[in-house]
């Protein structure tokens, strides 16, 4: 009897005998965070993780420096944020170009850098030198992410060490720190990283291009300090009452401080010296052997090659080497009369060009005389300026623009007699397009915008700067749309020498306006673009009232800014520069984005009459980005930027 009971009990309980093991279903070796820092090789992926938060300077659509300016005319169909940011303005409930929140939040990037810095001592097989370099890189990136947040949001919290997930609410509810404190933190952190960073990659470019170097870190530091000295942050009365809950002024109050400019100028000069010491300078495109091109074509090709030259480029200080695809939305509809006349080519995935340049940006480029077209006496006396949106009356006999404009094709006065960077940075209706597989200057592709049967582009002006002439179209396979386009891949510079020179000139003009270096460094840029120096150009070509514009600080400031807007057009600096100069309101408050919008069956006259593509809505509050309101609910110590 008892036996039977035991048997029954055993039968019932048998399933539970192996209880302990039964629920252990997770095998060993399931990936956990501990695996990352077990050895140097797996830890290396964490270094890449730290870099992966880099804001996409090389993708103009996701770069607020491009989209939040008047440089681009974005097609409505592209994506909500790109055009809306200027058309309707940003909002605080779901901000556009939000780098504060999300999976690529820069705060997550900062956390990643801190994790790497914390874990470096635990990696058993890493050399001391490499650990020092990784540490310096992570520290620099941490500073850079703080800087990028600063450049959008202004005063931000400083996260120098990671907080534990179990931290108290008080510890987590951080405050925004004042502008000067943030800037000092960024500069201090970069300075501390400098010794650990290599001075130039020293031949390791093949594998290491894109990693931060000492001279690049110095250049970024220069940019940070120039920004901090600029009008928006230095003596800006608009934010005088921007006080946080502790009663601390988040913006410096009082008059602009010239010391900030001095500090910036010094940093610029130090960066220039460091860069030049490793052979960096202004890149000049040299005609490759076997390619025949006149100097005008060479100059036209140059702006895109400054970005696009890979091997012999000595201009880029720091490059963003991850995938870009920046060209794809910029490819215009191209006709080549040597091939089947109806052969047309589009940009990315067969869609029509959606990331076009605005007429606003096109207006900025100098005349061929190196002065603004509105200040060029030749443009005034010939009435070119007033009639600039008229079709070119002499197109049929004109020979002098034959490399730039399709021979016999009627273009507009606006497109004539401009500096080489105009033709190199932009393409327009009738523009010749050297390259794309046909390296023959007599027989180029050309752009046809007017009266095409293709869906229209937004402004009729294309950002040619993004498309190096070495991008090719295989005309034989490209019988339809995008097939056959082989993009010439390149890394996009986060900062390049021309930028640094202009930063230096700008800082020096503010801190020491009589210093000869001011004009000298601007002239370096002009010389490379085939223009005469500032003094000679204005003296010779400017209208009477502008001839000595360079003589006073304010005039020179305008010249430097204009030079910067032209030289760095579309490169992502435009929006940031216009904001720090605090001129965004002049450009975009009730402003308009203009372009040549093709409507079928219209006349050439009406085609060249600028269309208002959209009106812009810029308000004072837009100078600083809105913090998504949910953040303010989660952290009551955080306060919103003024006006949001």
């Amino acid at each position, binding site marked *: *009897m008892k036996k*039977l009971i035991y048997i*029954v*009990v055993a*039968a*019932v*309980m048998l*399933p*539970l005998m192996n209880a302990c093991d039964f*629920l*252990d*279903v*997770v095998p060993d070796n*399931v*990936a*956990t*965070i*501990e*695996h990352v820092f077990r050895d140097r090789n797996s830890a290396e*992926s964490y270094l*890449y*993780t730290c870099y992966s938060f*880099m804001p996409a300077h090389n993708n103009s659509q996701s770069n607020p420096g491009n989209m939040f300016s008047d440089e681009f005319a974005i097609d*409505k169909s592209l994506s909500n944020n790109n055009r809306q940011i200027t058309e*309707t*303005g940003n*909002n*605080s*409930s*779901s901000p556009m170009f939000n780098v504060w*929140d*999300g999976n690529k939040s820069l705060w*997550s*990037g900062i*956390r990643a850098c*801190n994790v790497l810095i914390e874990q470096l001592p635990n990696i058993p097989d890493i050399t001391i030198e490499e650990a020092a370099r990784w540490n310096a890189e992570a520290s620099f990136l941490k500073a850079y992410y703080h800087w990028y947040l600063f450049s959008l949001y202004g005063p931000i919290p400083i996260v120098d060490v*990671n907080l534990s*997930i179990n*931290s108290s*609410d008080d510890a*987590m*509810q*951080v405050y925004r720190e004042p502008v000067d404190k943030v800037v000092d933190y960024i500069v201090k952190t970069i300075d501390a990283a400098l010794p650990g960073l290599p001075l130039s990659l020293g031949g390791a470019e*093949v*594998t*290491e*291009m*894109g*990693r931060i170097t000492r001279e690049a870190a110095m250049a970024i530091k220069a940019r940070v300090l120039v920004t901090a000295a600029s009008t928006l942050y230095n003596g800006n009365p608009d934010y005088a009452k921007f006080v946080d809950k502790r009663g601390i002024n988040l913006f410096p109050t009082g008059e602009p401080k010239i010391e900030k400019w001095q500090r910036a100028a010094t940093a610029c000069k130090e960066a220039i010296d460091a860069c030049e010491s490793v052979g960096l300078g202004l890149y000049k495109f040299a005609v490759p052997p076997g390619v025949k091109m006149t100097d005008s074509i060479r100059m036209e090709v140059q702006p895109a090659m400054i970005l696009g030259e890979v091997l012999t480029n000595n201009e880029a200080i720091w490059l963003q*080497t*991850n995938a870009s695809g920046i060209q794809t939305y910029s490819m215009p509809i191209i006709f080549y009369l040597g091939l089947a006349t109806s052969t047309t080519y589009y940009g990315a995935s067969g*869609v029509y060009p959606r990331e076009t340049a605005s007429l606003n940006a096109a207006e900025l480029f100098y005349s061929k005389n190196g002065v603004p077209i509105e200040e060029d006496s030749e443009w005034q006396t010939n009435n070119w300026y007033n009639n600039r949106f008229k079709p070119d009356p002499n197109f049929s006999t004109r020979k002098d623009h034959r490399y730039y404009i399709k021979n016999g094709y009627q273009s507009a006065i606006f497109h004539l007699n401009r500096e080489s960077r105009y033709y190199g940075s932009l393409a327009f209706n009738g523009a010749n397009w050297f390259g794309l597989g046909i390296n023959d200057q007599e027989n180029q592709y050309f752009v046809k915008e007017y009266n095409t049967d293709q869906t229209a582009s937004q402004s009729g002006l294309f950002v040619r700067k993004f498309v190096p002439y070495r991008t090719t179209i295989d005309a034989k396979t490209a019988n339809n*749309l995008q097939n056959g386009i082989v993009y010439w*891949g390149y890394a996009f510079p986060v900062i390049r020498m021309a930028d640094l020179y202009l930063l230096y000139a700008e800082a020096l003009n503010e801190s020491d306006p009589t210093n000869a270096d001011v004009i000298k460094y601007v002239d370096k840029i002009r010389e490379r673009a085939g223009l005469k120096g500032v003094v000679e150009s204005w003296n010779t070509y400017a209208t009477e009232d502008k001839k000595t514009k360079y003589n006073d600080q304010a005039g020179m400031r305008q010249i430097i800014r204009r030079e910067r807007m032209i030289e760095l057009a579309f490169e992502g600096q435009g929006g940031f520069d216009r904001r720090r100069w605090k001129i965004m309101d002049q450009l975009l408050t009730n402003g308009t984005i203009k372009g040549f919008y093709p409507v079928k069956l219209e006349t050439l006259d009406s085609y060249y009459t600028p*269309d208002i593509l959209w009106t812009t809505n810029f308000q004072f509050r837009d100078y600083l980005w809105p913090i998504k309101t*949910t*953040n303010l609910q*989660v*952290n*009551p110590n955080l306060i919103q930027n003024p006006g949001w």
Partner: protein
Amino acid sequence: MKSKNKLKMMHSLEDYFLRNAKLVLLFLSLMASSATFQIYAQQSRSVSGVITDETNSGVPGASIVIEGSSTGTVTDFDGKFSIRAASNDVLIISFVGYKKQRIKVGDQTTINVQLISDSQMLDEMQVVAFGKQKKSSVISSITTIDTKELRVPSSNLTTSFAGRLAGVISYQKGGDPGSEENVDFFVRGVSTMGASSSPLILIDGIESTTTDLARLQPDDIASFSIMKDATSTALYGARGANGVMLVTTKEGKEGKAKFSFRIENNTSMPTSSVDFADPVTYMLMHNEATNTRRMSSPNLVEVYYPEKIENTIAGTNPYVYPAVDWQSMLFKNSTSNQRYNFNVSGGSKVARYYVGATYNVDNGVLKVDGTNNFNSNIKLNTYQLRSNVNVNITKTTEVILRLGITMDNYTGPIDGGNGIYRKMVMASPVDFPAYYPKTDELSYIHHVMFGNKPYLNGYMLNPYADMVKGYKETSKSTVVSTFELKQDLNDITKGLTARALFTTNRYGTTGASRAYSPFYYTVAKQDYDPVANTYKATNLNPTTGQEWLSFSQDLPFISTTTYAEGAINYDRTFDKHGVNVLLVGYLRNYDVTANSDQIAKGTALISTLARRNMGISGKIAYNYDTRLFLEANFGYNGSERFAEENRFGLFPSIGGGWLVSNEKFWQDNFIRLISKLKLKATYGLVGNDNLSNDPADRYFYLSDVNLSNNTYAYTFGQNRNLSMNGVSINRYANADITWELSTKSNFGIEIELLNALELQVDYFTDNRTNVLMQRSYVPTTLGLTDYSKVRANTGSIKSNGIDIALDYKKNFKSGLWITSHNTFTYATNKITKIDEPDYSATPWLSRKGYNSNQSFGYIAERLFVDEADINNSPDQKSNFGTVEAGDIKYRDINDDGKIDTYDRVAIGYPTVPEITYGFGVSAGYKGVDFSIFFQGSGRRAFWINPKVTAPFVNASAETGSSIAGAYNQLLQVYADNHWSEADRNPYALWPRLSTTIIANNAPPTSSSTPWIQTSTWFMRDGSFMRLKNLELGYSFDKKLIRKAYMESARIYFSGTNLLTFSNFKLWDIEMGGNGLAYPIQKTVNVGLQVSF
């Protein structure tokens, strides 16, 4: 007549009763003879009478005993009796199946007694957790339902739940045949804001899916129970908190083979169809939409010219000026479905069997195109086999084998029924015809010339082409096999039994699609000759169209469950003390294959690890004289999801009951009026270990990292080719995470009046704690990525409610019978603790105190009248962008002069109804029977989706739809009632027209902030009542059909969802915000049921 009735009654009682009746008779006659002496010993006289049943027929063999003595007699064949008794004696009259009655003799010499049937004894065994229990002793809250009630003409059993099951909140969301997501149901409502609020479904004790339940045949179901309170669910421990649905299938009964056969044919059609504006109105309104907002987007060029509109009106040429009614182009008015069910049961002393076979055909309402040789309409064939065999291998050992096989074969359009419907509402009615007819000169073309128009880099949406271009086949199969051994251990001690069960089942599904790429044609402007009215269609995609079919196959999905259970049960009554002890141990293992999504995301490894749980559960029940009941249960469970030290949990419960009507005083005084009165209360803990619906996100004690995440990749090198993926942390390890804990209490009362009306009322509370929540106080500045947000068991939520079942059953002498089944369920909850930011300054934002399904949004006041109105109102432009006259004006809750997320408040009822009710009557007279059932729900709000219904909007770009070239159609109600510059009605149904989504009026596309502009403007009351079921049946005369060897035959006509009562007319209200989808169907059904 009398004897026939009796026969029928006897027949309907089981053999059990017959056998017992004989024993009782024998016993009583013995007692009677031994009592003879005592009768003479007392001063007594003769008392006689007739004992009758409810139909006034005499009851033979009823026992009459004088209380406190062994004197007694039994009635004769006519129910008459005679006994000698004294005036102060009390006669106890009893008969199997009827209630005991006590009659004082007094002065009476004739005592006629009508017996009251004891319904508790008729269906006396009730299915409870891990076994059966006498219904009278059940003190927990369990809803059982007559499976006939669940017999609805649908291949989805769950559609019958609403209103029929007390304690179940249920509503139907759509009507696409073969879609398992048509019905939502919750036991006692939603009582958690955690990942899962679905009940545990057990079919023959085996954990099953909603699909398994949906596919069950009512004919095969023996019992259907819903366990709602702590005592009934505690044995399921960490899985019982959301209630348990327990279904058992039929088993064979000893006797000759009984065949039953049922055929149904039904016609189904949408309960209501959505009206779209006619093509001309569409164009006119489209022009209006384009022009009325030109200021903000000056470059809109897509306008319908007057010439096109005029020619469309004139009907000049339907292929050049198309006007397509897609709805009638794609959908039929109705379709027909068939159902066949056959079952046979019977057996001998040694073996019993139940075998059922079912074949159902459900068809969709898509039109079939003659130009293809394949049929892309939906057809869902369901085949089912069920075989339950019980074998007594020894006197004390029973072996049960259960086999259930369900096979679904589905064919349908590539997009599915819902997909085609969605495409239909996004197709332009005027830009191209569905297809061009072939003219003589194009007779060499073999393909269909579908109409279309270029759109960006592709084409516009032609739903007709998408419907007919191919078809999808999926097959699903489920095999459940169970082996069970029952051993009677009376040899050891009386009342001891043991049981062991082993189950394994397989579920597999795979599918394939075959489709061609449609050729699209268009008529260019120059190709139309208006004078001759001739046109030439040109091919748009000569290189990408394809006449022949291509093939693609779905990744197969297979799941396997293995389950073992062992139990010992001790059930014995010592005199007045009834004792029941149960101990169960079980193990469950569930394996699945990974789906393509998991493989793509790299989460397949974790997702496919076995899901396991195990536990011991036990019960001790005691009753005193079937009057007082006490019960204690426990479940001790472990789940593989938690850290080793937190893996097991104990879930105890206790309960007590008092069957007042079994008390002597009650029997003496009230039993004729109130034949049953039971009071009961239970209290206990139950758990819910289903903390995440993502199978990859379950081992909370481990960190979840992706060591090779290309989102965090970077590239270095001159040639930009030195890439390495980065590391992302999806979850930080937290060993403390544990199950939700539910503290349930239940107070119930069961009353039966006059043996006919039974009322059960239960009041319950469910205090859910430890609800896993994302910790919301963690600021972004901490640097955790979105998907590595910290979670903890911090939430609490309190639910309460009431469920009522009222049943009436009465057979009248005339042969009329009436039954009525009515239920009412009210369940609500209130969040008591939630991880949310500190809202003390803005208390209206807090979810605390609100229902877990409460929506928050803006209060819409009206539409803006003009620009000045906008300027004088709180600022909306800052946050919503474009705001023009005719756009929605919101209330500034915090009076800060701008509308932002601080102005959102709780609006409307919860999205899950708080009330579900049903009522109905069935009656029969002679051969005719009739039944009617109404069902409804209340306290539910839903939102018309302002993006999906926004007319003319590019659905591909702006509503997040993946369908290319799609533009929302115009609802007739919007055409009739919208704000326009001419008619500035600030209360128009639809705001100012637009061809783009106006963020102010509708939520932005961003998926990370869905519905942030939810407002009262599009909020609707979801309460409704509908005529759920109407049935008229006729049973043929038995004499007549007996000649055809049939035992019974019934023909019936029924209809479901015939009428709906609600204020909402756009579509079937039960679909709520999901209205523009495959509609809920109403059916008209004819059936024949034969048994022989």
